[in-house]
């Protein structure tokens, strides 16, 4: 299957083979085999300390790992390093830090130093990327004064510029109220349908997994305890054992 430009073809994929991470003699992730396709949302779930964040770190190349991480670009039918968009759990920055949202985005996507007046086309570009996540009115705000939900949207705008192959979201809605969550999930759903990108999301929100995720990977004590279609993982025995409660129907 070929790309038609913007929307997902479903054929690009990221695969991990026997991905293992050891730190200080402890095995944190053991033999993780994943298969993530573009145009799909994969939820990574599991109790605290299961290795979810470590999995992201390994994918991003921030943790030393053994095993293989491969990305197949269906458009050119070649294997290459995927481009990542990463949204961390929180944006930790001092309230007073003199960095505006626009500075933050410009510093990340251009080489023209941000202490010069920004070029018109760059300003346009960041306006467009903020608009995509309904955050164009935040451009002049100080980064440190954003609320949790606003910061998430700004980081999402950055992660999507330029469009990544794989979007990694680490517990994006923790600390957001109900309305914020809804808006964020809607944004993710729109991205999934309009962009050629695979989305992996670490979350404890099983309602979200049930409603929006295509696939789920259940990690427990560093190993994949279950994976497959999201609804099936949630209804499975393993899920009940790990979380000690009934799955969501």
């Amino acid at each position, binding site marked *: 299957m070929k790309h038609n430009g913007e929307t997902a073809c479903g054929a690009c994929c990221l695969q991990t083979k026997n991905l293992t991470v050891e730190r200080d003699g402890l095995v944190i992730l053991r033999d993780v085999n994943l298969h993530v396709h573009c145009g799909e949302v994969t939820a990574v779930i599991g109790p605290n300390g299961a290795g979810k964040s470590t999995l992201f770190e390994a994918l*991003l*190349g*921030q943790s030393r790992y053994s095993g293989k991480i491969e990305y197949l670009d269906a458009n050119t039918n070649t294997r290459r390093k995927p481009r*990542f*968009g*990463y949204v*961390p759990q929180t*944006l930790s*920055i001092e309230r*007073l*830090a*003199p*960095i*505006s949202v*626009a*500075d*933050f985005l*410009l*510093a*990340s996507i*251009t*080489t*023209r*130093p*941000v*202490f*010069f*007046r920004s070029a018109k086309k760059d300003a346009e570009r960041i306006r467009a990327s903020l608009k995509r996540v309904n955050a164009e009115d935040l451009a*002049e705000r*100080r980064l440190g004064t954003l609320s949790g939900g606003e910061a998430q949207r700004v*980081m999402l705008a*950055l*992660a999507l510029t330029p469009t990544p192959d794989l979007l*990694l979201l680490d517990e994006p809605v923790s600390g957001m109220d109900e309305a914020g969550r809804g808006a964020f999930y809607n944004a993710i759903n729109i991205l999934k349908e309009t962009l050629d990108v695979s989305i992996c999301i670490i979350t404890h929100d099983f309602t979200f997994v049930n409603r929006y995720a295509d696939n789920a990977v259940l990690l427990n004590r560093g190993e994949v305890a279950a994976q497959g279609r999201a609804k099936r993982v949630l209804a499975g025995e393993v899920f009940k054992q790990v979380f000690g409660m009934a799955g969501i129907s």
Partner: protein
Amino acid sequence: MQVLTDFFIGWLKYDFVKIGLVGVVLFAPMYGMLGTMVVSGKLAFFSDSLGHSALTGVAIGAMLGLSSQIPSTVAFGVVFAIGLTVVKSRGKASTDTTLGVFSSAALALGLVLMSLGGGFAKYSSILVGDLLAMQSTDLIPLAAALVCTAVYMTFRYNKLLLAVSQPAIAKSRGINPMRIEVEFACVLAAVVMLSIRWVGVLMLNAMLIIPAACSRNISASVRKYVTVSIVFATASGIFGLLLSFALGTASGATIVLVLAVIYVYTLTYVK
């Protein structure tokens, strides 16, 4: 009255004041600019350690009998900066503890080396510094450093900003924060070592940090932050130097006091 006359016109008669002023105009903008990154990256303790290590650099230079101590001081500073950055990131102890150990060790080593021949007194001027003791030939390395710093900051500022403020996001975008930080540490070390004789070990960190700290109080964007920091650093450098000439006080310390007054004033603007 005499003080006012000296401040405004009296200095015109003296070449050493003019040279000092040119020196300030050359190094203050560097301090203002690098300071913004030191403050944003929470590297204040780091730059303080760098200043202390200058004593060792100067002592080694003197022992090797080099005619000019600049090469040995800069070389030592760069090596010290690289080592410190690596230990800081690899170490398991908290950063302030690691830096505290390195900082005091560098200071102690410098003092031991300098006092070896029983002649510490002849080095004591490096602690306080003297901008008015600059020679016209000292201006050349400062001018070169200013050009290099400006070029470096122009090409690296964005990556540096991302690396020190959001290292996780920087990494995900293919930036190696460690490498960027080591580079910055080297540039900072070179600038510090080049100017330490005039600025003084004890005043160095204040001159590096206060302009940026003042600017931080009143700026909401990077552009204003950097510009205002450079302006504060340069203006208080010129003002403080002339004031120290008129009052007959230590130049570095006078500049720092001027900066401190500006800082207190900008505090009232903090929103």
